[in-house]
């Protein structure tokens, strides 16, 4: 029987390999090893080389340079040298460079797809149909931003030299996500690809030469952790953009604390995939293939936790098992596979160990009986059932082809289970009922929500996480803002006034009845936990009164009260605006009293005090005005779906106020924060806390719900540390000393809260309100994708 006749009977699939000839020829040309791409040219790494291996076979592919701190220094210097010219190059000229890169990527798309597949182990189907087209799209999209920047985001400036560190799971795509927006905005970059997967970045460097990218604008240094550390530590780097594990993200946060470097981080995830009983279950099963068995599950936003409504759980699991029974795992260059190889043996061991751990904790592990390659870092698709919420496979990011299943009883429970995680990167919801699906989408704490789909990406759609999945966005307007700075709000004025020199002889402030202010927690004036008070003084050192000496337990109570006030975050913007207006109204009624208090306590002329109160009222109006106007449009993604971004509150923000302008600075920070739906715990001016404590009654009469604004008086840096360490606090805005800023950032690593610190600088509180910047800091972007079609 001929082979054709045989196959006619069996109807099996045969091999269909994509040719790697051109890529292997290119690698052969570089068999002596790759250099570093610095200043538009190739230089030898001084740290020797490391071996790039082919995950599917374990065979060596190439030798890649290891950049030492000295090499990194050279790359940063070249980026720094290129910055003055590149940042002043016209938007149109920059657009032309980005466009040239986009075109070259398209022209070399097959080559790039094969190279990426060889180096990473992912299927050629994915590199060809997903990775590389998204890379080209990213450069096109940002060519457009370069063109439009001056018009659309006037007054914004690039940051300078940006250090970018990317992971191995989407080597070229993550490079595009990092480089395209950075250079579109006029920054120059030093990028380090992951040690396992440097090759597409090195080929990209060759494309940069061909595209005419000016020397030094894009520098690519290869190496491992130490190379990355040298970038993170480099004093001339203005910003670090990192994609990788939460563990490394925390290290970077700690190392950059107080450095003034801006930071965006896209970290790990354990994303829920929620299936309601009215979902198209066949499609949901296939959606899971796209969610967790895409890229071998080595996806930060992989839908690794399946939450399925109890009534259809068995049915969906049966469908999944049937689908996995048809799964094909093998040579990444073969066009007849669903899944390729994990990136390296070490990753396979890690996945395997986590699955073993889950089993030992009582989980049931299921893998299909399918043909598996005998060599290379292959791991079968895996289904884990019978787990509790404490099981390793349910909690830990596995970064492999492993799905863990749990059922739920109601939408409410689904949301609770979904949000019961340190992570908050992405989520999927499957239902044919748009009402239910969108309700869940609104309640999920995740930066991206896919309705009836999974793992959709586009350059126009912001991507990034909530909670310990990181901060900052990539893609869209929000992503662009991460590479630009507004006109600075900071001045050389101090934020901390020297401690009072008590003037024992001075007369106490006249005409004020002792009000014995306490803390303001949960809408009540509460006695400080320690039972102590601190004497506070006027600007010229006279006794002004006493305030509570707050301690860590007061902070704990204040955060609990803020947590309980969660309904504020889901109240309507209109409602929040009304309360802010009412607050302004009530402050106006008592303007004279506050003016007098300002003069008496903080010093200054009555005219200055009157202006300060008036400006505070204006700030309340501005925040109220913005409450329902800080919005973003529907996104123009190139597929048939409605993709929208919503600005959501961060949750609980800790606000540490400066000493000057004790009323105005308080209002300027607190009003936008609560306008966006946050609840706040405020440490008022340590020097002049009475202006804040005087506000208690104003807040009470303004219908500010209990727990939305909580105020603890006391020693700034002691309380700030407790706030920064508190894992329930989502962000910390610190105004204090240089050292206090560093300490606040360093202490924030526990839950990777978003920090905004003054670095010891002051602000012209009477001048710019900085509302836009403040609201940007007070919100996080959620992108919701809803494909449609009947």
């Amino acid at each position, binding site marked *: 029987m001929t082979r*054709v*006749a045989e196959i006619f009977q069996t109807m099996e*699939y*045969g091999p*269909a390999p994509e040719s790697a000839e051109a890529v292997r020829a290119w690698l052969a040309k570089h068999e002596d090893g790759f250099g570093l791409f610095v200043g538009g040219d190739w230089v030898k790494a001084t740290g020797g080389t490391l071996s790039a291996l082919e995950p599917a076979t374990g065979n060596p592919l190439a030798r890649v340079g290891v950049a030492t701190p000295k090499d990194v220094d050279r790359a940063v210097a070249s980026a720094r040298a290129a910055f003055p010219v590149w940042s002043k190059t016209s938007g149109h000229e920059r657009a032309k460079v980005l466009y040239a890169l986009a075109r070259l990527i398209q022209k070399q798309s097959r080559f790039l797809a094969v190279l990426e597949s060889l180096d990473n182990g992912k299927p050629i189907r994915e590199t060809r149909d997903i990775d590389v087209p998204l890379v080209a799209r990213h450069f096109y999209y940002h060519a457009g931003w370069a063109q439009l920047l001056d018009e659309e985001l006037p007054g914004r400036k690039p940051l300078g030299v940006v250090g970018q560190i990317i992971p191995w799971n989407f080597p070229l795509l993550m490079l595009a996500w990092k480089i395209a927006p950075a250079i579109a905005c006029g920054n120059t970059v030093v990028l380090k690809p992951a040690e396992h997967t440097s090759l597409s970045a090195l080929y990209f460097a060759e494309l940069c030469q061909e595209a005419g990218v000016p020397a030094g604008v894009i520098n690519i240094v290869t190496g491992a952790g130490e190379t990355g550390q040298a970038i993170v530590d480099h004093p001339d780097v203005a910003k670090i953009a990192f994609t990788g594990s939460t563990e490394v993200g925390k290290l970077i946060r700690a190392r950059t604390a107080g450095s003034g470097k801006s930071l965006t981080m896209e970290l790990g995830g354990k994303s829920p995939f929620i299936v309601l009983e009215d979902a198209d279950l066949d*499609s949901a099963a*296939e959606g899971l293939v796209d969610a967790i068995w895409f890229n071998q599950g080595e996806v930060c936003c992989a839908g690794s936790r399946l939450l399925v409504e109890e009534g259809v759980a068995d049915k969906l699991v049966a469908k999944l098992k049937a689908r996995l029974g048809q799964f094909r795992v093998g040579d990444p260059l073969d066009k*007849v596979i669903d899944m390729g190889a994990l990136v390296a043996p070490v990753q396979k061991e890690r996945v395997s160990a986590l699955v073993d751990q889950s089993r030992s904790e009582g989980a049931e592990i299921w893998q299909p009986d399918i043909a598996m390659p005998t060599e290379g870092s292959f791991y079968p698709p895996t289904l884990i059932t019978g787990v509790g919420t404490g099981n390793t496979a349910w909690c830990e990011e596995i970064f492999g082809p492993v799905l863990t299943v749990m059922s739920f009883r109601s939408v409410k429970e689904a949301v609770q289970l979904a949000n019961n995680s340190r992570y908050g990167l992405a989520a999927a919801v499957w239902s044919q009922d748009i009402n239910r699906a969108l309700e869940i989408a609104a309640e999920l704490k995740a930066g991206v929500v896919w309705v*009836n789909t999974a793992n959709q990406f586009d350059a126009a759609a912001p991507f990034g996480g909530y909670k310990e999945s990181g901060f900052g966005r990539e893609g869209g307007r929000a992503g662009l803002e991460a590479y630009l700075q507004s006109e600075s709000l900071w001045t050389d004025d101090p934020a901390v006034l020297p401690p009072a020199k008590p003037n024992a002889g001075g007369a106490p402030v006249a005409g004020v009845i002792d009000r014995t202010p306490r803390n303001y927690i949960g809408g009540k004036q509460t006695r400080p936990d320690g039972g102590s008070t601190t004497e506070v003084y006027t600007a010229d050192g006279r006794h002004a009164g006493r305030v509570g000496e707050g301690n860590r337990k007061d902070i704990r109570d204040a955060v609990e009260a803020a947590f309980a006030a969660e309904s504020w975050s889901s109240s309507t913007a209109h409602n929040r605006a009304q309360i802010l207006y009412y607050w302004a109204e009530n402050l106006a009624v008592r303007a004279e009293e506050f003016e007098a208090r300002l003069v008496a306590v903080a010093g200054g002329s009555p005219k200055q005090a009157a202006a300060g109160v008036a400006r505070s009222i204006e700030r309340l109006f501005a925040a109220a005005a913005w409450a329902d106007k800080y919005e973003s449009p529907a996104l123009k993604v190139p597929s048939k779906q409605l993709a929208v971004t919503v600005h959501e509150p961060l949750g609980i923000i800790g606000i540490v106020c400066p000493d000057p302008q004790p009323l105005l600075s308080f209002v300027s920070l607190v009003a936008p924060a609560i306008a966006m739906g946050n609840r706040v715990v405020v440490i008022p001016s340590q020097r002049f806390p009475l202006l804040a404590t005087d506000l208690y009654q104003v807040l009470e009469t303004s219908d500010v719900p209990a727990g939305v604004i909580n105020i603890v008086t006391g020693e700034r840096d002691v309380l700030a540390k407790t706030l920064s360490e508190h894992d329930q606090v989502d962000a910390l805005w610190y105004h204090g000393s240089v050292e206090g800023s560093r300490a606040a950032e360093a202490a924030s690593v526990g839950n990777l809260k978003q920090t905004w610190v003054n670095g010891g600088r002051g602000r012209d509180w009477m001048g710019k309100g900085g509302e836009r910047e403040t609201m940007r800091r007070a919100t996080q972007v959620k992108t919701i994708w809803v494909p*449609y079609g009947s």
Partner: protein
Amino acid sequence: MAIHAVGRSDAPAPSHNEPERNPGVPFDASWVEAVRVNRSAVERRIDSLGGRRTVKKDWQAAWLLKAVTCMDLTTLAGDDTPGRVQRLCAKAKHPIRRDLAEALGVAELNLTVGAVCVYHEMVETAVKALEGTNIPVAAVSTGFPAGLSPFKVRLAEIGESVAAGAREIDIVISRRHVLTGDWAALYDEVKAFREACGPAHLKAIIATGELGAADKVGKASMACMMAGADFIKTSTGMEGVNATLPVSLIMVRQIRDYLERTGWQVGFKPAGGIRAAKTALSYLTLMKEELGDAWLSPHLFRFGASALLGDIERQLEHFLTGRYSAAHRHPLG
């Protein structure tokens, strides 16, 4: 769950035995109402399928031969004549040029197409022309393509065609029952047609291009299977949109659901607009992936096509010679 038929979806090799016929089940509206279809997700599955599965070289040749055996070679034109139908039947008996079949090593298999599909008036001619073979004649029926002639006439039409020797009847459903959601009426109609078919196999054409929404395609499929359809078929070939891979996916998933509920295997026939060999391979892939190897057989899978065979022949010749072929080198059907 009882499995009445041979060749389960997880069987190692396709069955060449005819499965037991689906007798249908009593109408249960909840089966229809349970159907959920997300159109966008269905399209994404189809978009990615071509990148996940492909066949090249020997495999492609073998799969194309399989496609030939699953073909309902069709002529449904107002100007059909006995001569035209006889020529088509000759092609049906020897769809692959003899030298190609020999070179491929399948000459002794005497491959034929799955059936010849004609209007009632041509049934007798076709039956006669196919005498001595096992190729069935299929008649389109019940007021094809619109299905709006009197019900009694439609029933009688089935009887006439069966009497004339048709072993398969491709009926059209009343689209209004689907559009108005009257699933019981649809069930009754198809059940009556099935009874009228007697021993002949019934293929229910649901005319997907006229049903308005993806979930209606799924629901109509389920109602027809409950009523005892042996096959469900996408289109008459006369609608604005005929067979597409996404609607096919919706239908085959319902076949799988029905199998899981009842144990009965129902066949699938996409029809209209399938002209390229490459498209035929996509359909075979879809069947293999979603239903299993049992559906890679004319007993459970057919293409309704007239121009497809010519392209397959050219591709097979290219496979053997490495040169691109020309239409006139293959016997005209």
